[in-house]
């Protein structure tokens, strides 16, 4: 990252996690993926949103893990869940049923309309890099009332044209999403290591709406593969508080300790 001042005493991941956590509210029903989204959602639960409902695609509803899951189906998610349901139910009744407030997605690439690629770099038939694929994302992107995207910003990840559309954002912009029949409002924020991008009214193209204290808008523009618009009233995001950092670091430390315990199989 192009810091203009001395690097702050927290990592880019920590800043992104805290920023994402702040966007979640008490009582919100959140469809969570592994990694940063899961850290952010649980941080929100531990701080300002004790009543947040976390749903993981493996079938756990209302889960309150003490440590972060390493995979989407970790036992911790089931043991601390309000209910564990079959996976087809999650996608049919809970997601397509319109019961999710916020879907949290990552990707390898995003374009100016918030469309996401997690499938392939290069042509589909002769891939340069074959990525894991869409998983639950296409229907989360379509059905969650709103979607938050978390992705580090660079000219390689914020591209003018995706190699493959795995999940639809605003498609070609200007109302194309509404015409597609997607029930949700689409991506409402892209949280990066520079700040937060939000869609502009009308065009639905993402613009830099807020930046972290220690970065400049010019640096964010430089880290974007399309000519990034900067909002006239660019906000500055407050740095993580001591409480936020302590809670996040304690959560990560508990997670680290739990996941490095050796496994004994039955004889």
């Amino acid at each position, binding site marked *: 990252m192009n810091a203009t001042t001395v690097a702050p005493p927290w990592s880019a991941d920590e800043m992104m996690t805290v920023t994402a956590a702040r966007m979640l509210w008490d009582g919100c029903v959140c469809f969570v993926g592994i990694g940063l989204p899961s850290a952010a959602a649980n941080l929100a639960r531990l701080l300002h949103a004790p009543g947040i409902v976390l749903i993981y695609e493996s079938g756990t509803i209302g889960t309150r893990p003490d440590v972060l899951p390493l*995979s989407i189906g970790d036992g911790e998610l089931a043991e601390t869940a309000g209910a564990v349901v079959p996976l087809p139910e999650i996608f049919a009744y809970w997601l*397509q049923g319109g019961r999710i407030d916020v879907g949290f997605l990552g990707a390898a690439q995003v374009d100016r309309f918030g469309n996401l690629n997690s499938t392939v770099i290069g042509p589909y038939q002769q891939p340069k890099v074959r990525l894991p*694929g869409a998983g639950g994302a296409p229907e989360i992107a*379509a059905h969650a009332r709103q979607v938050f995207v978390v992705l580090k910003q660079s000219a390689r990840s914020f591209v003018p044209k995706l190699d493959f*559309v*795995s*999940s639809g954002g605003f498609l070609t912009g200007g109302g194309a999403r509404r015409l597609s029949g997607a029930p949700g409002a689409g991506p409402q924020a892209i949280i990066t290591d520079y700040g937060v991008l939000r869609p502009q009214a009308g065009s639905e193209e993402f613009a830099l709406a807020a930046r972290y204290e220690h970065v400049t808008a010019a640096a964010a523009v430089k880290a974007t593969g399309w000519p990034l618009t900067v909002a006239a009233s660019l906000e500055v995001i407050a740095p993580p508080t001591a409480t936020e950092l302590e809670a996040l670091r304690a959560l990560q430390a508990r997670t680290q300790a739990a996941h490095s315990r050796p*496994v*004994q199989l*039955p004889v």
Partner: protein
Amino acid sequence: MPIVTLTAAIADHVRDGDSVALEGFTHLIPFAAGQEIIRQRRRGLHLIRMTPDLVYDQMIGAGCARRLTFSWGGNPGVGSAHRIREAIEAGWPQPLEICEHSHAGMAAAYVAGAARLPFGMLRGYLGTDLPAVNPAIRSVECPYTGERLATVPALNPDVTILHAQRADRAGNVLISGILGAQKEAGLAARKLLVTVEEVVDDLGAPMNGVVLPHWVVTAIACVPGGAWPSYARGHYPRDNAFYIAWDEIARDRGRFTAWIERYVLGTQDFAGFRARLRADGVAA
């Protein structure tokens, strides 16, 4: 419904060219069964699985498959499934045809398969490029509202293989914890093989527990530890260290092949596999 050895279950029920689904969504992954398929050198399989992770990395890298139907492929929480990637990117050890879905699409296809309906339906794939690369993803007009809805052909594997916590002596199977699409994949199949942690006198199933009754199960093998390195709730947790170690093993063709030869092809059965891992200081 016989309780047999895993060796016999695979020998009797998995044929070259079959469509085979090993399900289990990060929990209860039938690793021992996948390795037995490698050991018996099955070829030309159409492998089906929502989340092809290490178990299909091993089977595809070992040359068992010609086709893969899936919705997410990687090493969960760690990174790439290197063997699957190399099969797709470079055709090694042989070209791999892919039939790619989203999770919601795969789930709908299993549900349709279990119900013996011709296709599953969802409000899905909206605005994505997946239908452009997978001609099996089509659409239908709702006869009531006129809405266009996505369709996926039913999945009816020749064989589905699951791992579960327990079976009773009559062959009724109980699964608890994270279920994935195991019940649906099991009921969609023509033949259903199940490996279990234990065989008990009394299943002790709660009234709404997920039970696959003995008359839908083709064969059961008692294989304690058979989901390692994934986990079996109530028996053992996921071996995260192995998932991380696999990243290095699978990254290189030679190292992968040596691992498969030493631990899978070079052992008689799952007990031999575990004994060799223990001898080498791996926590199995």
